[in-house]
């Protein structure tokens, strides 16, 4: 290594990171040459916890993987279990879940644009966006009862129905949100100081985005039309017309625009779904024991593609539960974006992928113990864990 090169650690505690994660930046002057990520500061043992709880209890555990995309995680989990049961949930439940998923996307996206505005020091936009996000939060509160952990999705359907009164109010709010978002989109693409900080910052070329398996809005901002809702439709997404939003800027600005456009698209989806809701029951009874088998389910969470893997052995508890949060898919991409950028741009680039590092951490790996590489079997992992506890 040259003497000129300095390594700057960003994190695990850093004002730009709301959650612990470490990036080692190799820098030359103000330029970042390379970024090396270090995960594992917030391992919460959720996968282990899931295997000692029943399928019903795991609904609430899955919801608590992430506070912002809680609906997406619980939807992914419930969808997997329902696949194991080989059941189809009632059409009305599908629509209600879809509306909830889109409301979830709305508030997550508005939150992210607000955070991005704060990272570039535009607190006024941050305040406005969060104020308008409150409308969505109130809507969610109206439908589900609570604000963050909704406890709404059940195995075999949803807990409550959307009444016509609620539907009317949601439709009214959606119009407000859409109008406001259209204004913010126009403003953000005209305001010089925002353009200065976001245009050409954190470039991720389409071929890199594909090669590094980026997902969600990050991928779509690199002009690649990929959306799980379109590619592998779940719920009632194949019955509802919607556009997969893309932008060709490949930078933070186009990520912002993609988020705005998806908010507008989501309000349209919600209005369409409310108008075309089938009648009927919204919930079916489900047995407590789930047939043996394994399943991978995926949904388009607000932050990208969320993948859950569930292995059942025929009892009422899953044998193995694995979660891949969308942020994990975007970490290689963010390292690519960081290389060749300026240090002052690091916060906004990091924020640019809408990171949620705490949702991401699954296994903490301790090097060199078993003399093996990065792949451990479950048995080895179990033995290692037992030995670690005995030695403690």
């Amino acid at each position, binding site marked *: 290594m040259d003497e000129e090169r300095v390594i700057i650690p960003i994190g695990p505690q850093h004002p730009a990171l709301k959650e612990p994660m470490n990036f080692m930046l190799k820098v030359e002057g103000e330029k970042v040459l390379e970024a090396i990520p270090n995960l594992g500061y917030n391992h919460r043992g959720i996968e282990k916890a899931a295997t000692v*709880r*029943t399928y*019903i209890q*795991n*609904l*609430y555990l899955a919801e608590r993987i992430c506070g912002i995309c809680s609906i997406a995680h619980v939807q992914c989990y419930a969808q997997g279990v329902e696949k194991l049961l080989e059941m189809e949930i009632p059409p009305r439940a599908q629509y209600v879940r879809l509306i909830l998923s889109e409301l979830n996307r709305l508030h997550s996206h508005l939150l992210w644009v607000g955070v991005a505005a704060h990272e570039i020091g535009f607190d006024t936009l941050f305040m406005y966006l969060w104020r308008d996000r409150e409308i969505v939060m109130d809507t969610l509160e109206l439908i589900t009862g609570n604000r963050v952990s909704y406890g709404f999705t059940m195995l075999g359907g949803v*807990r*409550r129905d959307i009444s016509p009164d609620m539907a009317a109010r949601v439709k009214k709010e959606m119009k407000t949100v859409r109008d406001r978002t259209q204004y913010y989109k126009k*403003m953000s693409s005209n305001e*010089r100081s925002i353009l200065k900080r976001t245009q050409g910052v954190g470039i991720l070329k389409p071929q890199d985005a594909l090669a590094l398996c980026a997902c969600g809005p990050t991928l779509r901002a690199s002009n690649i039309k990929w959306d799980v809702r379109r590619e592998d439709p779940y719920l009632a997404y194949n019955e509802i017309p919607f556009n997969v939003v893309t932008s060709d800027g490949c930078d933070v600005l186009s990520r912002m625009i993609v988020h705005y456009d998806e908010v507008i698209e989501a309000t349209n989806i919600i209005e369409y779904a409310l108008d075309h809701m089938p009648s009927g029951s919204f919930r079916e009874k489900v047995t407590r024991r789930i047939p043996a088998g394994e399943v991978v389910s995926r949904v388009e969470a607000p932050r990208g593609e969320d993948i859950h893997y569930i292995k059942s052995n025929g009892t009422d508890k899953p044998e193995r539960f694995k979660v891949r949060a969308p942020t994990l898919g975007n970490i290689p991409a963010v390292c690519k974006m960081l290389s060749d950028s300026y240090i002052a741009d690091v916060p906004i680039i990091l924020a640019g992928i809408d990171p949620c590092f705490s949702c991401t951490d699954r296994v903490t790996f301790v090097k060199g113990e078993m003399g093996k590489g990065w792949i451990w079997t479950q048995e080895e992992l179990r033995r290692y864990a037992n030995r670690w506890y005995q030695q403690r």
Partner: protein
Amino acid sequence: MAMEHELLRNLRKKVATEKYPFIKKKPPEGLRGKLIIDMAKCIGCGLCVFDCPAGAIEMIGKGTAADLKVYLDRCHFCGQCAESCPSKCIVYSTEFELANFDKKNLTIEFKRKL
């Protein structure tokens, strides 16, 4: 400067902040707050205890004679017990201001009337 007009418009608008502890907004009807158990209807099946993800409900005694103890400090208000209860004796009130300095105050005992 793209936002100047919006700024001045907001100057005349009503402030969005809520003066929460001083002026309280009515919670939505479906809010899950402190839970209430109607012991007259309870059949003592123990499903709520079995399904509670947080282990917040404890059963003292057995069968139809059992009393229930709820630890609100463990409860995360998911509402599964109300869903699981076959006799629908658990309801959630909209009382949500439950912060307390002492764990003891957050333990509620529901006793059967003799």
